């Protein structure tokens, strides 16, 4: 096995930074980092689904909406505490995810992207329609999440630590899920479904489960988004949110869990940075930044960093193939596509 040293060091560093951030950073940064946690969880869901399993979703904002609204409605209308509301949000979103996953079995590539996109587009109108439960246009205001009385943390820091603790747990659970046999099967279905099936991998089982778990994560992310804002409205969960999640996943690095963390930081702060650079046209700055990043780090920021580190510590590059690949003449002779 390759050395796990650098990875463990990076995890330890991330944990330390997250743990001490409230002590060293201004309050508004800590507030922003609650959103980063919410996005990181949701983007992790997209990485499991799209990065690991190859199913493209342009509709994960809908699962965030479901999670956010389940937590909000239970708190607002029924007065239930969040430690019940968030798990139920996860369950509801996961169940919906499995349902959509079953539909997704019949769709591939751009067709799945479009189908999930329509889900994202429909979400705000759907939320506005069921006024009595969702509060319609106006949404629902929520009480601030407070620490238990005996606990010496103010409301913001409490939510910050809860959000990041949950983030840690779901990252760990996801890592356990995708390592070993299960993860190999997920990625095999992404790389070459026909081959994967020939080993005995059941595509229906894995793809549906990947969709379900992905939706669980998006639902939890949505619930924390609702708690952080102490408010939910249809405008929180527009289709732009779904696109933002995909942008975060791709920019961060869709093939690694670190991509979720980095991507969440990017989507949370890039708009502010863009605003600072040019207050008149932040959208242009945002767009140009995206294009530049795709040009220079197509495998995401994490992929780029990994290459950089590998270059610095002089890790040997991959060995070249033993023989030169296919002689051109031979490939021309037999390479005609056959439809047998």
């Amino acid at each position, binding site marked *: 096995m390759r050395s796990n040293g650098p990875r463990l060091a990076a995890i330890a560093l991330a944990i330390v930074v997250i743990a001490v951030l409230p002590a060293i950073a201004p309050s508004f940064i800590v507030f922003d980092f609650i959103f980063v946690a919410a996005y990181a969880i949701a983007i992790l869901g997209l990485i499991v689904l799209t990065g690991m399993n190859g199913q493209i979703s342009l509709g994960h904002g809908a699962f965030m909406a479901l999670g956010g609204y389940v937590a909000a409605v239970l708190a607002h209308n029924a007065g239930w505490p969040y430690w019940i509301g968030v798990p139920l949000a996860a369950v509801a979103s996961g169940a919906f995810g499995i349902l959509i996953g079953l539909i997704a079995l019949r769709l591939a590539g751009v067709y799945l992207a479009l189908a999930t996109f329509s889900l994202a587009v429909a979400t705000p109108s759907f939320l506005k329609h069921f006024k009595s439960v969702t509060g319609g246009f106006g949404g629902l205001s929520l009480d601030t999440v407070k620490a238990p009385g005996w606990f010496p943390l103010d409301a913001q820091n409490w939510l910050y630590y809860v959000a990041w603790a949950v983030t840690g747990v779901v990252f760990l659970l996801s890592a356990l899920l995708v390592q070993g*046999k299960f993860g190999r099967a997920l990625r095999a279905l992404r790389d070459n479904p026909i081959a994967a099936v*020939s*080993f005995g991998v059941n595509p229906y089982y894995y793809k549906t489960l990947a969709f379900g778990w992905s939706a669980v994560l998006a639902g939890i992310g949505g619930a924390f988004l609702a708690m952080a804002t102490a408010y939910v409205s249809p405008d929180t969960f527009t289709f732009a949110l779904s696109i933002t999640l995909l942008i975060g996943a791709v920019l961060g690095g869709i093939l690694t869990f670190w991509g979720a963390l980095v991507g969440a930081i990017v989507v949370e702060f890039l708009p502010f940075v863009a605003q600072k650079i040019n207050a008149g046209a932040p959208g242009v700055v945002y767009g140009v930044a995206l294009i530049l990043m795709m040009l220079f780090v197509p495998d995401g920021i994490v992929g780029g960093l990994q290459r950089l580190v590998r270059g610095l510590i002089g890790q040997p590059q991959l060995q070249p193939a*033993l023989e030169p690949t*296919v002689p051109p003449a*031979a490939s021309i002779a037999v*390479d005609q596509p*056959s*439809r047998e």
Partner: protein
Amino acid sequence: MAPSEGALLEARDLHARYGEIEAIRGVDLTVARGSIVALLGANGAGKTSTLRALTGTIKTTGTVVFAGRTLQRRTPEDAARIGIGHVPEGRGTLSSLSVWENLMLGAYCVSKRASVRARCDRVIGYFPWLAERKHQPAGTLSGGEQQMLAIARALMLEPQLLLLDEPSLGLGPKIVRDIFALLRTINQQDGVSILVAEQNATVALAVADHAYVLETGRVAVSGPSSELAGNDRVRRSYLGY
């Protein structure tokens, strides 16, 4: 129909279609236990479809008897579980997974860790370079190496029958000869029966015991390889001399 004596696989009246196009139209074939059988034919003759029909990758009608059992509802999963290894067309490389992960997926249906390890050792005996390259992404291997990885991966299942779909595809003549020589070795040492679909009739007939020539979805000619290699019609149509 009663299964023939010594047959590992017996397919009768296989049909398969893609929408309007009928890809195979009543194929009968038998693979004797321990033998190598070649499935020859031009592009579109139905070689890939026949292999896919056997494993249930495509919807088919007809009967398949494997190791004395009639396979009623054929699915690729069941095929893997009962010991049919399939090296799909185009090698089926899982490009972004490592060589080792590719091998482990081949043993997906093998639940005992000890058996997986034993299989792994056995397969590395045939392909020693796999061990040195186990962390390399499989997509960075050369075409010939990917084909060998695909064969190694299918062997991880400890199959009774190995189906290969055009192992020569896109490879140079020397590598093709090496691969077929290796198939012969594997067949003799492990007792794995092999059904190989191939356009390169010369090399396939050289190692196969028996061969079928498909033409527009039907078996046009069949017989022992030596006989087919001497058959004028086969020679003109498929061997080109």
